[in-house]
């Protein structure tokens, strides 16, 4: 039994159109809405009677036309150009809320704030809570697959001398041992100047980066930073957070329109940048602490960044940093933060 109908206290008689669902033409009828009954009088004088609580009215968002589904499968349409009072549905709680005065204001606020909170706080928080429980073997398998894919598509085998590699690997082993990251390993590759950490503890540094840094202490500082990504499981967290966030955006923006796809793309770009910049700051702090812990100068990483900055200016190269869509925070703020960290930790030591 339909309970959405609210009975009327006084009778209401209106002219209405009836569509029987069999023929395309409509039939003009007199509709009488009484307390418990809806009665239709046809042009030939015959009547049809329905229990009012079995008549389903349409949403009342429609200001000029009300539809009523009748239990015999027919449809009653009432034009209300004078906005005549028509017996209305008893709304569900959600429908009542949608129509309430404060709902629009709250909704606009929620539409702007909730996704931001969900994407920037709730999902990363949940991923951070779940990350320690994800088996390390999964993460390692993922890292190995990504590494082998990258070596086939983006990088070439390293040309560094085996002595140089051994020297840097020894530095790396010393750093990782001091923070208990025994499973991490260092890989060398040829390609554009870069250093990065993959899920499962694989740290990759290119020959060109080693040449650019031109000093083993600076290389060690960069490796300490990459170990920060390994320790915080940034690779895994980044992929998981981004995947879930992309799904949330897909659900929220139903993509009925091209404009919604554009909003989705922009939001994903901005989110990737935000997660990535946050991870870089965490890795910087970790590197600073690690360098101090291993009796090295915590300022070496700041000096390394300064070197990047100078070289980028000299060769007119864009560093992917310092903007809302960059994957890295502004270099000058990173340098300042590292100097402050070094000062603080060295003073404490």
């Amino acid at each position, binding site marked *: 039994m339909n309970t959405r109908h609210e*009975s*009327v*206290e006084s009778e*209401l008689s209106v002219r209405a159109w009836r*569509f029987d*669902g*069999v*023929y*395309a*033409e*409509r039939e003009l009828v007199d509709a009488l809405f009484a307390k418990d009954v809806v009665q239709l009088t046809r042009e030939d004088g015959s009547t049809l009677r329905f229990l009012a609580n079995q008549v389903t009215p349409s*949403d*009342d*968002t*429609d*200001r*000029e*036309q009300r*539809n009523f589904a009748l239990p015999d499968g*027919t*449809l009653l349409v009432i034009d209300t150009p004078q*906005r005549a*009072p*028509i*017996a*209305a549905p008893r709304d569900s709680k*959600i429908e009542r*809320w*949608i129509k309430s005065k404060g*709902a*629009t204001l709250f*909704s606009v606020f*929620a*539409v702007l704030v*909730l*996704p931001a909170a969900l994407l920037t706080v709730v999902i990363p928080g949940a991923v951070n809570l779940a990350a320690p429980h994800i088996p390390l073997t*999964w993460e390692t*398998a*993922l890292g190995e*697959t990504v590494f082998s*894919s990258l070596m*086939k*598509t983006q990088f070439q085998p390293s040309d560094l001398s085996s002595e140089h590699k051994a020297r840097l690997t020894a530095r790396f082993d010393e750093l990782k041992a001091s923070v208990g990251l025994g499973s991490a390993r260092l890989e060398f590759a040829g390609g554009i100047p870069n250093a990065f950490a993959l899920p499962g503890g694989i740290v990759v540094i290119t020959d060109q980066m080693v040449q650019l840094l031109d000093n083993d202490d600076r290389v060690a500082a960069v490796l300490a930073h990459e170990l920060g990504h390994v320790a915080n499981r940034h690779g895994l967290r980044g*992929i998981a957070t981004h995947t879930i966030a992309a799904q*949330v955006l897909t659900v*929220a923006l*139903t993509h*009925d*329109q*091209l*404009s*919604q*796809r*554009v*909003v989705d793309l*922009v939001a994903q770009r901005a989110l990737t940048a935000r997660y990535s910049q946050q991870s870089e700051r965490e890795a910087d702090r970790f590197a600073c602490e690690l360098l101090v812990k291993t009796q090295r100068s915590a300022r070496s990483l700041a000096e390394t960044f300064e070197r990047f900055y100078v070289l980028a200016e000299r060769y007119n190269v*864009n560093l*992917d940093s*310092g*903007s809302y869509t960059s994957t890295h925070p502004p270099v000058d703020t990173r340098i300042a933060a590292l100097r402050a960290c070094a000062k603080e930790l060295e003073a404490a030591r």
Partner: protein
Amino acid sequence: MAFWKNPFDGPPPIPRAPLPSEDPFFVRDEALRTAEVDVDAVPHDRLDRKATQRDLTLEFTGDTWEYFRLWAATQALIFVTLGLYAPWAKVRRTRYLARHYRLDGVGFEYRANPVAILRGKLLVYAVLAIGAMLAFLNPFLIAPMVLVVYLPLAWLLTHSFRFRWQTIRYRNIAFGFRPDAKVVRWPVLAMGVVTATLFLLQTTTDQKTLPAALVLLLASLALGLLAWPYLTSKLLHHRFANARWGATELRLDCTVREIFKMMFKGGKGFFIGIVVAFSVLNALTVLIKNIDLRSIAQALSYLLLTVCAVAFGRTRRLNYALNRLSVGDQITFISTMEPDRAAGRALRYGLASVLTLGLAIPWATIDFARWRTQNLLVRLTGDWSDFPTNPPTVAAKGAIADGLAEEFGIEVGW
């Protein structure tokens, strides 16, 4: 009082004749009168009204503020319920829009069951989650997975059309659709093979070598200029040619090849202009040092290429199909949506939606619906009583197929 309390209660306004700019029929008739009739798009025999024909009033009566309130409230509920409310939101919004498309004074009805859509969506998310997990563990699995996904896609797409037609009613008579997966099977599989090849190349080869770059370029061109336009043209043809309203079949008097050609033809060089503008803008983005400015320029070039070009091609194709569509022998259409204006609108809607963080989406929806009705003439030969007796309506099937097709973003919208 138990009467319906209308928020606009009070004395009725004094009726007055609408100003020409307020009258949707005047605007539409002006648009039809002044539009440069595209000889490719409108057959000449449709332009003259015969003695037995009458033009039906078609209007969109939706209100931007009213729809904005509905959209915002349902959007907030989607976020609060972490997406579970999405099917109900979709039904409420579509119902609102459908009922405000008034043809001959009668609105359309949308009668989908949100629970069925939710079931479909949950299944889709389960499949996607498994796929994402496999891709997460081994990116080399992406290419075979793409192929596996494309295998049942022809069935899913055609059955999704059935669901969409069956959930719409006009004059209490449901539309229907006869899905035939065989018709689109080969184009879908061809597209699956090209897409899987692209993924395979990206994950296994050194992209910096010339042969790999050439293969990638050829695969991209095959996808963008051949497979995708041909598949979507085929789907558009299938969607209209196999539909019916009650017992009356819809008839489409053109071939897939003709629809396909329309994507690239004419338009005063507009399409070429977009492509040139995109190429120049894209080249310039490389020179921009500021990363934020570069991102904005890249987003603009994306808007130009995809939103404008897709809107342009899609509108031109849709015009062509609608102008050759009839419902039995009784109803014909003349669609005069200008493709360059459609592209301009798409660009405006896209920019406004991005700049308002999505809040302009309801305005874009209502504005486009109004424009669409102003540029569509519906002509009835004879009377409504000339339509045959209709069979009883059956419950709509295919919510799962609909959910899947929507997730894959294949051209299922109008």
